[in-house]
């Protein structure tokens, strides 16, 4: 099939039209739409609160803002059953190993939402000796929500952003469907004289010699 045609779809029609051709069908692209529709409307967050933002997260789950309208009300205390990790608050060095471990235990596909200024980049406590300047130094983050703390509606806005991201993913492009190339678990940091990321060991040794 060398003469593949491309068909222009106007922007306003994209949500309604599923375009496919034989090649895509063989590769499985046709499944993307219904598959993602199912995924985006049943994201189970992990019941895991860190700090102030966790209170706003609970307020979002309560009746007035009601996360259930997004299919997210099933908060799972176990990482094995959850799809989304909401890092809701200041991440401290003492807490990082646990968070990385929890992230490793989540099954794929998994998403991380950094809620609030602290989780995104350290927030007002950034300068502190026990504070990590953003969780994205240790685990990959999909959506950043700014605010200190974000209001429940800002959090819902972040969830919609995440749904947008899920919509754009395709089964045959995402890394976690790739059997050939299994994903390694992230290295868990160690609490030494300061927090040590195993990926930095070479640098630490080098610094001592310099």
């Amino acid at each position, binding site marked *: 099939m060398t003469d593949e045609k491309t068909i222009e779809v106007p922007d306003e029609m994209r949500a309604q039209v599923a375009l496919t051709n034989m090649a895509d069908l063989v590769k499985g692209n046709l499944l993307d739409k219904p598959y993602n529709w199912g995924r985006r409307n049943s994201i189970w967050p992990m019941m895991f609160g860190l700090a102030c933002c966790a209170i706003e997260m609970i307020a979002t789950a309560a*009746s*007035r*803002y*009601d996360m259930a*309208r997004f299919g997210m009300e099933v908060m799972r205390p176990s990482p094995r059953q959850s799809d989304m990790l909401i890092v809701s608050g200041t991440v401290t060095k003492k807490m990082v190993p646990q968070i990385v471990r929890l992230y490793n235990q989540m099954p794929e596909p998994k998403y991380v939402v*950094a809620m609030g*200024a602290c989780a*995104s*980049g*350290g*927030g*007002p*406590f*950034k*300068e502190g000796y026990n504070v990590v300047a*953003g969780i*994205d130094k240790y685990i990959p983050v*999909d*959506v*950043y*929500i*700014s*605010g*200190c703390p*974000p*209001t429940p*509606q*800002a959090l*819902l*806005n*972040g969830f*919609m*952003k995440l749904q947008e*991201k899920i919509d754009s993913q395709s089964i045959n492009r995402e890394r976690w469907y790739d059997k050939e190339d299994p994903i390694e678990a992230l290295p868990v940091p160690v609490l030494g004289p300061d927090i040590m990321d195993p990926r930095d060991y070479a640098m630490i040794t080098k610094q001592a010699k310099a």
Partner: protein
Amino acid sequence: MYGKGIFKGMWVTLKHFVATFTDDFRMIGRKYNKAEGIEYRMSKDVKGIFSIQYPEEKMPVPEEFRFIPFLLYDTNEDGTEQIRCTSCGICAKVCPPQCIWIEQTTNPDTGRPVPEPVEFFVDIDICMNCGYCAEYCPFDAIKMDHDYEMASFDRIDAHIFNKEKLLKPAEYYAEIRPLNWEREEIIRKEKAEKKKAAEAAKAARAAAKAEAAGAE
């Protein structure tokens, strides 16, 4: 009787459940998802529970609500934009987590500072939405925004706001905070008039001095 307390509790739950639906029925045909409908459902009279259908309907944002700061500019009659900020640095000093960076302009000819910033940065990953910058700004040049829908996929580029991104017209401010705007405008006008009067007096004095010098 054992179990009476449980039944009493269940009765309260049932009442809540029914009240939630009767509230909904009562709102049929009325503007439920408009500000006044939401206002009613948040008041003391409502017995049931209600949910905001975000994003179709949104909670009304009160005037004092604050999120991320922004800078104001006035549009002059000739269409030019006049930034209110004079880069005096008070906001940078009162900022508790020190998330504001200001670069002052110097006039290349005289080497003295010019009252307008070259650059103005706010790192919103550090900002704690406390509102001090707006509260202590003597020129009403920096204010707190109402826009909270700022989720993004990236922070490295998107979360440091520069002057360009921070600037918003004064009319926008008048729209989101009408009462504050009114109050501040009166004070600003008074100040401007005083300044004008002082300048006029100074000019008059200078003229009188010149005259006196001329008479000698």
